[in-house]
């Protein structure tokens, strides 16, 4: 030991740490050590560096921060001795990762060490570079490494080869520089160099097509010969693993042949013999042999069609699958998934075995097998496979149920031969694993049920039976509640019996019991409760005789802690209580939900992109007698003509509409495509809170929320605009609604009376249209700006069906009042005005911006104009 050094030795520190009985003790020891090391670092004594860094590495492994030691690594690397460099490079690789700036400081030391006279120092530098180099370092040091591939010592050649693989991974442009050097390595006899050389060639082939062509042309035969030699070689104790000479080299050679053969029939032909030999001659009783066989099968399946070889490959996989070793079965399942693409029949033969694997105690195997089964399902075997899987669902582990039920649902949806079967299977899944079923799956089920009008009675009765037994399965309860709400009358009267069904006697009050149970159970979540509340409202009309009881249940929800529930309870109570005359039309059965729209919506709801969202709108505007997407509007029985414009843009709120109530939580799955709370807004608008013109307003709010969608599809926007503009007089239905909300005072935005004055601006001007904005601020509310927009027609003709839409970024809130008219006469004969109020949540930080879109008809032709307003006066 160095007599000048202070502090504890590494060994003593490790002992001290190991002696700690509690985590707190360990922390104390580590803290003290770190403090000592920091002090020593500050003294900058080169004698202790070596040991300090070793200690730091140990501390690092325990999970404590050690960033203060990073510079010590660099100092050690820069010192002249081998021991210092050795520990320095080790610390560098352990304490730093390639994203740290400090790493750049080491480039120069690395360069010097790559040219060092001691080959072991060169080896250290190559190893560090190969393990953590960044793209910049790769560029800087590539020439050095390339030169070292030809170094006299094999130890350096192999390190340089692997270092090059890292370099070309980081900077693929450099690949061509390495091609010649890599090809020369293929002739090596030294196994280490050969292995790394083959690896580098493989890597280059993947990255660079020219390199692939080069190796294909020049090296195919050489590689095949090397593989043949190694396969036929006599026993070599140095490389032997379980009777196979260097399985690692085998595997790399097979992998290189794979890329060479793929897409090239001639090269594939050349390698047929040797592949057949490896596939038949390799011992398969040990892991090493199986690893080689596995690689061989993979190569056979990847290269150009040589059908006799493929039979061989599939047979090997069949053998693997019946192996008792779990590892081998696992890889067999994995490979069969790939084999399915070229020989479905051969894989189908193993279906029974695969199905057994789904029930394996090993989670990894189960998961693989389940995925394979999903691929094996087709129209012919779907009923049998589904039955097996559902039977297993009943007894499977809880933590596997989620995966399993998801796959069953996928299979059932994809291959369902008929609706009755689909509904039956889905009900079984919901009963067994309802709490794991994803929202889109049970939403889809509701859409299907809604479409199967002849099965409504059957379904609602089956659900009723199921929910009595499996009331803890949340999604089952939801679907049941929805169906009972919709089809409660069919439930009690045994309407629409189908052949196989046993009649049941359900009284109206039994049906309500189920709903009451769902709404009062403490562990029901808010969505379920909300659905139950809607169901109750519906049942109050379906079962007039017990509407008093239903009312009592609804009234109880007035005390709900959820604001939404409270509010709905008050509203629904009011409907039940005071509006018997409109109640039945209000809660009519929902129109059939449109499956196509839902499916597109569903597909689009995952990758949140504008293009997928735009699709549903395209399919919608025409061709439906009743716009199915806006059931709530229908629910309120507004004239559908009035709202024809709404469905085309309300696609995003489809399911919200379905549920009728938005509780926020239920909307999470729609992610970014969904305007938050849109459902509620819609409802509020329909119920006409504080606005004199509900139909108009609901449209404008929907349009605003979905402007982004509309933007991506101009033709759709035209559709929107060309449809009749709703009259802005209140419809009778909506006036009737006014007193629904007794107690809640309407809050229309009032005209500003006084406030700071802002100059008016010309927000938009084209050859035919000019828009002016004048501003005012309501007193006491600096965030809000009232904007009066004046539209002036600059063309010689009158605009009809004039509609103005605007959109604002998230930090703004926009409210549009109805326009003064939808007909814009020629300039001088009048103008349309429309009031907007904008609330700026970032008032003082960000200024207003607005996008707008103006549509109108000119001489019977649709015209669409768009613009952005960014010249708002400061301080709004």
């Amino acid at each position: 030991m160095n007599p000048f050094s202070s502090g504890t030795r590494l060994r003593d520190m490790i002992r001290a740490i190991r002696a700690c009985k509690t985590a707190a003790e360990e922390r104390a020891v580590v803290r003290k050590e770190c403090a000592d090391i920091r002090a020593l670092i500050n003294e900058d004594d080169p004698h202790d560096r070596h040991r300090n860094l070793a200690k730091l590495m140990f501390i690092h492994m325990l999970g404590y921060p050690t960033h203060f030691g990073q510079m010590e690594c660099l100092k050690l690397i820069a010192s002249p001795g081998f021991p210092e460099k050795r520990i320095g490079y080790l610390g560098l690789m352990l304490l730093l990762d390639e994203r740290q700036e400090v790493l750049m400081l080491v480039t120069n030391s690395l360069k010097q060490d790559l040219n060092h006279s001691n080959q072991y120092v060169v080896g250290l530098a190559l190893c560090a570079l190969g393990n953590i180099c960044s793209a910049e370092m790769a560029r800087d040091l590539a020439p050095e490494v390339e030169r070292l591939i030809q170094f006299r010592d094999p130890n350096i050649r192999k390190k340089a080869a692997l270092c090059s693989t890292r370099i070309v991974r980081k900077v693929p442009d450099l690949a061509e520089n390495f091609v010649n050097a890599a090809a020369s390595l293929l002739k090596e006899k030294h196994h280490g160099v050969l292995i790394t050389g083959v690896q580098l060639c493989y890597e280059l082939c993947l990255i660079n097509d020219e390199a692939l062509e080069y190796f294909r042309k020049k090296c195919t035969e050489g590689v095949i010969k090397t593989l043949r030699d190694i396969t036929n070689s006599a026993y070599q104790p140095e490389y032997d693993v379980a009777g196979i000479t260097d399985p690692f080299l085998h595997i790399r050679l097979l992998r290189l042949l794979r890329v060479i053969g793929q897409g090239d029939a001639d090269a594939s032909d050349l390698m047929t013999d040797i592949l057949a030999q490896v596939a038949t001659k390799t011992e398969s009783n040990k892991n090493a042999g199986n690893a080689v066989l596995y690689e061989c099968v993979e190569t056979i399946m990847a290269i150009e069609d040589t059908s006799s070889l493929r039979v061989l490959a599939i047979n090997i996989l069949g053998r693997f699958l019946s192996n008792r070793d779990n590892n081998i079965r696992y890889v067999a399942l994995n490979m069969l998934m790939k084999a399915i693409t070229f020989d479905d029949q051969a894989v189908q033969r193993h279906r029974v075995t695969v199905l057994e694997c789904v029930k394996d105690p090993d989670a990894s195997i189960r998961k693989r097998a389940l995925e394979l089964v999903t691929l094996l399902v087709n129209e012919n075997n779907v009923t049998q496979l589904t039955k097996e899987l559902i039977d297993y669902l009943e007894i499977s582990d809880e933590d596997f149920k989620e995966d399993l039920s998801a796959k069953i649902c996928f299979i059932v949806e994809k291959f369902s031969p008929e609706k009755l079967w689909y509904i039956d299977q889905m009900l079984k899944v919901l009963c067994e694993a309802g709490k794991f079923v994803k929202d889109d799956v049970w939403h889809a089920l509701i859409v299907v049920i809604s479409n199967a009008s002849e099965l409504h009675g059957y379904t609602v009765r089956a659900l009723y039976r199921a929910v009595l037994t499996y009331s803890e399965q949340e999604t089952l309860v939801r679907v049941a509640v929805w169906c009972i709400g919709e089809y409660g009358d069919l439930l009690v009267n045994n309407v629409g019996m189908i052949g196989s069904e046993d009649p049941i006697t359900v009284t109206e009050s039994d049906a309500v019991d189920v709903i009451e149970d769902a709404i009062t159970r403490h562990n029901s979540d808010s969505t379920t409760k909300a659905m139950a509340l809607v169901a109750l409202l519906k049942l109050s009309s379906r079962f007039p005789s017990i509407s008093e009881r239903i009312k009592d249940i609804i009234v109880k929800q007035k005390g709900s802690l959820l604001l939404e529930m409270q509010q709905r309870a008050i509203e629904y109570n009011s409907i039940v209580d005071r509006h018997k005359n409109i109640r039945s039309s209000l809660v009519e059965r929902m129109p059939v939900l449109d499956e196509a729209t839902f499916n597109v919506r569903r597909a689009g709801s995952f990758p949140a992109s504008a293009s997928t969202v735009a699709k549903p709108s395209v399919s919608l505007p025409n061709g439906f007698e009743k716009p199915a997407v806006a059931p709530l509007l229908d629910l309120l029985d507004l004239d559908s003509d009035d709202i024809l414009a709404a469905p085309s843009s309300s696609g995003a709120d489809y399911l919200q509409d379905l549920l009728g109530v938005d509780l926020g939580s239920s909307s999470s799955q729609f992610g970014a495509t969904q305007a938050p709370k849109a459902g509620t807004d819609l409802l509020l608008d329909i119920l006409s809170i504080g606005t004199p013109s509900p139909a108009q307003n609901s449209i404008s709010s929907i349009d605003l929320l979905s402007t982004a969608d509309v933007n991506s599809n101009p033709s759709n926007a035209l559709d929107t605009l060309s449809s009749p503009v709703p009259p802005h007089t209140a419809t009778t239905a909506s006036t009737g609604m006014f007193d629904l909300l007794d107690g809640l005072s309407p809050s229309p935005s009032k005209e500003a009376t006084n406030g700071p004055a802002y100059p008016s601006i010309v927000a938009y001007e084209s050859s035919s249209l000019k828009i002016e904005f004048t501003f005012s601020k309501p007193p006491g509310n600096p965030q809000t700006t009232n904007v009066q927009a004046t539209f002036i027609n600059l063309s010689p003709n009158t605009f009809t069906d004039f509609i103005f839409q605007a959109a604002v970024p998230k930090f703004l809130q926009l409210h549009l009042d109805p326009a003064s008219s939808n007909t814009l006469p020629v300039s001088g004969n009048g103008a349309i005005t429309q009031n907007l109020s904008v609330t700026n949540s970032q008032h003082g930080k960000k200024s207003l911006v607005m996008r707008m879109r103006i549509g109108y008809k000119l001489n019977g032709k649709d015209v669409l104009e768009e613009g952005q307003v960014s010249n708002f006066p400061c301080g709004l």
Partner: protein
Amino acid sequence: MTCLIMLASGIHFVLLVSRQGKVRLTKWYSPYAQKERSKVIRELSGVILNRGPKLCNFVEWRGYKVVYKRYASLYFCMCIDQEDNELEVLEIIHHYVEILDRYFGSVCELDLIFNFHKAYYILDELLIAGELQESSKKTVARIISAQDQLVEVAKEEASSISNIIAQATK
């Protein structure tokens, strides 16, 4: 996970954990920030240590595969891509263990605790950039001992110099 998915990337990281969940060695070939590293270790040791004895040696994790094997009280884990040959990785693990065994003379966990840096040096002679560099155990042993020798020589020199200094300053 922020690491770049390339066509081939070899072994992403090597991890040695004890049965008690103590980390004995970590080696990262793909870029993981320090915070991610500890998260990965926590997550994986939770999964792997809880697996039963007769199950297969592969765990699917975050879209990758982790091949692990238990030797006495230590779990050796290597993370690879979905397409990689997991049976071969098992062989690589075994290869490493055999070299350790030869170097330490029937290796045990304590050897790897007190001589953790040696375990790293050996690993560095076995893998670079997540790829195997040597299939001969003998060659690895030879290169390691040559380097150990270099360190010994340097140490002797240093101590003889410091002795001279010590005597001179007496």
